[in-house]
């Protein structure tokens, strides 16, 4: 039986279908991702009243300590079906970082604490659970690295074959932590946008579950759980301001949508008014550039940055991210490679959290927007740290090493360290 035939049998009672974000045309639930009319991205459409009747704060609190506690708001019928324990990551008070930046209350959503150490586990657990519902036997993706890690791991856990496509210049840490799971890892001689284009064409030929191609409407919904967790961890309150890294723009868009959905289904008392700010690397900043130039056109770029997980020059959800930031009154900024490394070091030094280069982008942008007065000291700010520093160790290897290398005796130690306070 072909995967597409199975699709019509899979209808959750809270999902109405798929809807084009661009022109509003509606489609049945199926492994499709673009509107066949205008090519706009398809998004899951829910019956929020039905969800509101089912869900409650108590029901969520009684659920598992993972993102599956929010299953009522996710487009998966049977859950958890492909689960490595993703989500419900710590929301950590960052008082020392806040003091350094002249801010009031800053919290770090530490999503390095996922099974493969990035937020991509959120989207993959949903995408591959849905892929099993559709009857797919092979998982695939186009990836800048983190998604590759996650798809390879979840596919192994689910017993699916996998093909992950990555740019050939990726960090060794991301290649090894993908290949170890035993699936097929295909390095492409090109950048992510080249990989992406090849995958869009392959998806038309092979009946595979490409998590960010034909599974994208379901995949993208996983990112909403970052907003759900943030609100629950704040005692069902929303922050005043969030800072989110942007590659395709999907994560930023879905975090904002997540806060709105919580209100729509009755889990938040008041309509959320969260300012959303976006972070990009200067070497790949098509969305930030459009924001700064007050343009409605996002011009694609050729990425050149150490923040490879954010190196998407042609951001598919860029327009929606731009719109979300503008309408919420947030800001958008971009930072240099030097500032990225400093951001990684600042977060590690002040809060004991080691983020990958994308986290350096986010912290450096937080710093920049705070200095510009866009992020204010009277705001409660949540910063999304989406990947672990061990994945991009090259970025800080030159500046992080032993303080001293000495012989194993007291004299050598005392010669190296003049410690007055015993």
């Amino acid at each position: 039986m072909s995967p597409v035939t199975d699709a019509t049998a899979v209808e959750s009672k809270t999902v109405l279908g798929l809807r084009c974000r661009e022109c509003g045309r509606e489609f049945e639930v199926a492994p499709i991702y673009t509107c066949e009319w205008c090519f706009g991205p398809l998004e899951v459409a829910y019956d929020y009243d039905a969800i509101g009747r089912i869900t409650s704060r108590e029901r969520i609190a009684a659920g598992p300590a993972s993102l599956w506690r929010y299953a009522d708001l996710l487009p998966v019928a049977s859950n958890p079906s492909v689960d490595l324990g993703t989500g419900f990551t710590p929301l950590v008070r960052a008082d020392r970082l806040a003091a350094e930046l002249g801010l009031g209350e800053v919290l770090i959503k530490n999503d390095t604490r996922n099974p493969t150490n990035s937020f991509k586990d959120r989207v993959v657990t949903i995408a591959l659970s849905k892929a099993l519902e559709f009857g797919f036997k092979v998982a695939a993706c186009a990836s800048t690295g983190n998604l590759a890690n996650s798809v390879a791991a979840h596919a192994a856990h689910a017993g699916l074959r996998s093909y992950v496509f990555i740019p050939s210049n990726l960090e060794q840490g991301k290649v090894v932590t993908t290949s170890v799971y035993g699936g097929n890892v295909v390095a492409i001689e090109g950048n992510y946008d080249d990989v992406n284009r090849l995958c869009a064409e392959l998806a038309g030929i092979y009946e595979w579950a490409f998590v960010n191609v034909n599974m994208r409407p379901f995949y993208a919904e996983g990112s909403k759980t970052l907003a759900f967790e943030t609100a629950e961890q704040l005692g069902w309150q929303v922050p005043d301001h969030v800072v989110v890294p942007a590659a395709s723009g999907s994560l930023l868009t879905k975090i904002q949508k997540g806060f709105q959905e919580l209100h729509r289904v009755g889990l938040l008392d008041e309509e959320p008014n969260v300012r959303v700010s976006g972070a990009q690397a200067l070497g790949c900043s098509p969305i930030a550039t459009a924001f700064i130039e007050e343009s409605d056109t996002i011009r694609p770029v050729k990425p050149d940055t150490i923040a490879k997980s954010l190196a998407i020059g042609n951001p598919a959800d860029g327009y929606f991210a731009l719109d979300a930031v503008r309408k919420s009154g947030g800001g958008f900024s971009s930072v240099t490679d030097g500032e990225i490394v400093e951001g990684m070091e600042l977060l590690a030094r002040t809060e004991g959290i080691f983020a990958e280069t994308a986290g350096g982008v986010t912290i450096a942008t937080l710093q920049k927007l705070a200095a510009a007065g866009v992020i204010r000291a009277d705001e409660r700010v949540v910063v999304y740290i989406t990947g672990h520093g061990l994945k991009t160790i090259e970025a800080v290897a030159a500046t992080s090493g032993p303080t001293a290398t000495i012989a194993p005796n007291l004299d050598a130690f005392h010669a190296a360290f003049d410690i007055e306070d015993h």
Partner: protein
Amino acid sequence: MAVTVRIPTQLRSLSGDAAEVEVEAATVAEALKALEDKHPGFGERLFDEKGELRRFVNVFVADEDIRFMQGIDTALAAGTTVSIVPAVAGG
């Protein structure tokens, strides 16, 4: 001159399921116009009411995004492949 236009899955109902269509054209604009002439319906799917390429339609000439070249005025050599590709999410 003859060029090949690659049709994405989503639009093959317009090309009688053909994955590739041969047209005579010297620019991308001419190629897409020739596609419409050969298989009516492509025009309104690829262009908005103002006549601009829809913002989620990506067009490549020999593996390069036309937005890095001269847009729909990009010149085509004989035998070039023009690909119409939908935008894909991040990873």
